[in-house]
C-alpha cells in the first residue's frame, strides 16, 4: 500500500517537476498566467496527497491488522479444532471409562452376591458335615470314612471357591476404584479443557469482532482511498492538461527563439541523458533493490508501477548529482522525505529522494559528481536512495542511462 501511495506521489511529483512549478523556466513569463493556477493546484494536490497518504497508511495499517487478526483467528480456530478434538477424545474416553465402570460395578455386585451365596453354602455344608459325622450308617464304617473324606474335599473346594470369589471381588473392587479415579481425573481434565475451550471460543469471538471492526475500517478506508484516487486522477488530468499547455508554450517560445525540437520520443530519453555535457554518473555506490516499471507485490498481491529505482547504500553515504544542471527543488515531500530535483535542461530532470540533508540550495548550479546531500543513518547500517530520471515529463529507467549495480 505504501508503494501505491508512492506511485501516486511520484506522479504528482513528476507533474510538478514537468510543469516547472518549482523553478522559473526560460519561458516563465509566457507561462506566468498559468503558474498561479498551477500553484493552487499544487497546494491542493499536496493536501490531497497528504490525505491520500494518511488514508493509505491507515489502509495499510488496517490490512496489517486484518492480516494479523485473521492470523490470530486462524490460530484460534486451529486451537479450537484441536481443543474440540481433545474434548471429543476425552468424551470418548469418559464414555468408555463409564462403560467399564458400569461393567465393573455390575461385576462387583455379582461377585458380592456370589460371595454371599458361597459363604452361606459353605456354612451350610459345614453344618451338614458336622451333623453327617454324627449320623450316617455305623454298619458301613468304610463308606463313612470315604464320605467324610469326600466332605473334606468338598469343604476344601468350597472354601477355595469362596476364597477365589473373595479374591476376584477384591481385584474387581480395586479395578473399580482405579476406574473411578481415572474417571475423576478425566472429568477434571475435561472440565479444565472445556474451560480452556470456552476461553478460546471467547477469544475467537472477540477476535472476530475485532476483525469485523477492522473490516469495516478497511472498507471505509478503501472507499475513502478510492474517492481520493479518483480525485487525484481528476487532478492529474487537470495537471496534464496544464502541462500540455506549458509544453505548447515552451515549444512556441523555442520556435520563436529558433531553438531545436524540445520534445523527443520517450525511447530516445536515455540517449538524451547520455548526451548531457559530461555524461551521467551513479549518485552513489550501491545496489538497486527496487527496480523500475511494473513490479508485483506478493504481500498485497498488487502490481505497482515504479517510476524510479531504490539504491541500497551504507547509511550516511554522500549523494552526488548524476549530471550537470541546476537545483530546481530542495524540500520535503511526504512519502519521500527530503527530495532534491536537478534540472539538466532540455526537459531532463533527476530526482533524489529520502535524503537526510541537502548540501546545495535551490537555484544552485551543480556539476556531475557534486555532492548534493547525504543518506540518513540507520541502525541496520543501510539506507535507501530514491532515484528517478524524467525526460519530457516521462519517467525512464535510471539503469538504462546510468551504470548502476543491479
Amino acid at each position, binding site marked *: 500500500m505504501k508503494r501505491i501511495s508512492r506511485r501516486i506521489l511520484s506522479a504528482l511529483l513528476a507533474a510538478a517537476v514537468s510543469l516547472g512549478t518549482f523553478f522559473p523556466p526560460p519561458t516563465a513569463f509566457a507561462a506566468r498566467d498559468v503558474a498561479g493556477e498551477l500553484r493552487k493546484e499544487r497546494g491542493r494536490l499536496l493536501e490531497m496527497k497528504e490525505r491520500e497518504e494518511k488514508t493509505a497508511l491507515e489502509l495499510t495499517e488496517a490490512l496489517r491488522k486484518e492480516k494479523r487478526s485473521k492470523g490470530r483467528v486462524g490460530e484460534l480456530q486451529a486451537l479450537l479444532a484441536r481443543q474440540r478434538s481433545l474434548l471429543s477424545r476425552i468424551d470418548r474416553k469418559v464414555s468408555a471409562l463409564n462403560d467399564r465402570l458400569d461393567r465393573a460395578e455390575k461385576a462387583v455386585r455379582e461377585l458380592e452376591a*456370589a460371595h454371599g*451365596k*458361597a459363604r452361606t*453354602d459353605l456354612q*451350610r*455344608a459345614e453344618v*451338614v*458335615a458336622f451333623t*453327617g459325622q454324627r449320623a*450316617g450308617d455305623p*454298619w*458301613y*464304617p*468304610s*463308606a463313612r*470314612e*470315604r*464320605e467324610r*473324606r*469326600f*466332605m473334606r*474335599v*468338598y469343604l*476344601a*473346594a*468350597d472354601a477355595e*471357591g469362596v476364597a477365589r470369589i473373595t479374591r476376584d471381588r477384591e481385584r474387581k473392587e480395586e479395578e473399580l476404584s482405579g476406574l473411578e479415579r481415572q474417571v475423576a481425573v478425566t472429568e477434571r481434565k475435561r472440565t479444565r479443557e472445556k474451560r480452556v475451550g470456552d476461553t478460546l471460543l471467547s477469544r475467537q469471538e472477540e477476535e472476530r469482532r475485532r476483525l469485523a471492526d477492522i473490516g469495516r475500517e478497511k472498507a471505509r478506508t478503501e472507499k475513502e482511498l478510492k474517492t481520493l484516487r479518483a480525485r487525484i486522477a481528476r487532478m492529474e488530468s487537470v495537471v496534464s492538461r496544464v502541462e500540455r499547455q506549458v509544453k505548447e508554450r515552451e515549444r512556441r517560445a523555442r520556435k520563436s527563439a529558433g531553438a531545436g525540437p524540445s520534445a523527443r520520443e520517450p525511447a530516445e530519453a536515455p540517449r538524451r541523458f547520455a548526451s548531457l555535457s559530461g555524461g551521467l554518473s551513479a549518485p552513489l555506490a550501491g545496489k538497486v533493490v527496487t527496480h523500475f516499471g511494473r513490479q508485483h507485490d506478493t504481500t498485497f498481491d498488487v502490481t505497482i508501477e515504479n517510476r524510479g529505482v531504490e539504491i541500497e547504500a551504507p547509511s550516511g553515504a554522500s549523494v552526488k548529482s548524476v549530471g550537470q544542471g541546476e537545483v530546481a527543488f530542495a524540500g520535503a515531500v511526504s512519502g519521500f522525505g527530503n527530495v532534491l530535483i536537478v534540472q539538466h535542461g532540455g526537459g531532463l530532470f533527476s530526482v533524489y529522494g529520502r535524503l537526510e540533508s541537502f548540501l546545495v540550495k535551490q537555484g544552485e548550479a551543480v556539476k556531475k559528481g557534486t555532492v548534493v546531500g547525504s543518506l540518513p543513518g540507520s541502525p541496520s547500517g543501510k539506507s535507501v536512495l530514491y532515484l528517478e530520471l524524467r525526460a519530457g515529463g516521462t519517467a525512464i529507467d535510471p539503469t538504462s542511462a546510468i551504470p548502476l549495480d543491479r
Partner: protein
Amino acid sequence: MSERPSLWWIEWRLSRGSLVRESIGRFLFFCLLGFALLSLLLSGGVDRFLADRYAITAVLRAEVPSAEAEGLARKVAALPPVRSAAYRDPEAAWKEFLRAYPGLDPLRGAVGNPMPGYIEIRIRPDRLTGADVDLVASALRSVSHVELVLSGEEWLPRLLRAGRLASWACWGIFGAFLAGFFVVARLQERARAVALAGDFAFLAERGVPAGRLALLRAASSAVSGFLLAAAGTAAGGGALFLSLRTFPLLEGVIGPPSDLLLPRTVAAAALFSLGAALLSAAASLLGWRTARSVRK
C-alpha cells in the same frame, strides 16, 4: 440149630413209641443245628458280615484317566486277599457323596464336582486280617496314581477284635446247643434204659451179656444219630438255601447259596453227622450205665 435173636433193633421192638418220638425230636433239633452249622460255616462267624461292610478306598489323583484307573482296579483285583476292586469315576463319587449328604445337592453349581475318582477294594472274608489289609494298602500307596488310601487304620483293629469275639460267641452258642443235645439225648437214653430194665434183666438171665447189649444199643443209637443228623443237616441246608434265595440280603451276612454245595461244606456236614453219631452213642452208653447204677 437154634436161631439166636438179633439184638440190633431190640429197643425198636420193645419201646417203639418212645423211640419214634425221640427220633422226631432229634431230627428237628438236627435241622436247627444243621441250619446253624451251615450258616456259621458259610459266614465264617461274622467275617462275611464284616468283609461286606469293610472296604479299602484308594482315592485317585484328579488327572488320572478313567482307562488307567480301570486298569489299576483290575491289577488290584488280582491281589490274593482281594475279593473285588471296582473303579468309581468322579461322577459316581459325587452321587455317592450326595446320597450321604443330600442337602448339598444345590451347591454343585457353585463349586462344580470336586470329587476325585476312587477304587473300592473289598477283602475276602477269610483274609480280613490286619496283615492282609496292610499288604493291600501298602501296595496301593506305592502307586503314583493313588493320592490317598483309606483303610480305616484307626478303627480296623478294634473292628477285627470285635469280629473275632462275635465269631467265638456264635460258635460257642452252637457248641452249647450241641451240648444241650448231648444232655437231652443222655437223659432220654437213661429213661429208656430204666424203662426197659426188666426186659434187659430177662435177657441177661437167658445168657445175653450186658456189655453186648449196651454196645449194640449204642451202635444202633449212633447209626440212627448219624442218619438223623445227616437228614437234619440236609433239611437245614435246604431251609438255608431257600432262605438265601428268598432273602438276598442274607447273602451279605451268610454268603451265597452256591457255597452250600462246596465240597468243604459237604465235608463239614458229614463230619457234623459223624459227630452227632458219636454223641448219640456216648449218650446211649452213659444212659445205660446210669440206669444200671440206679437199678443196683
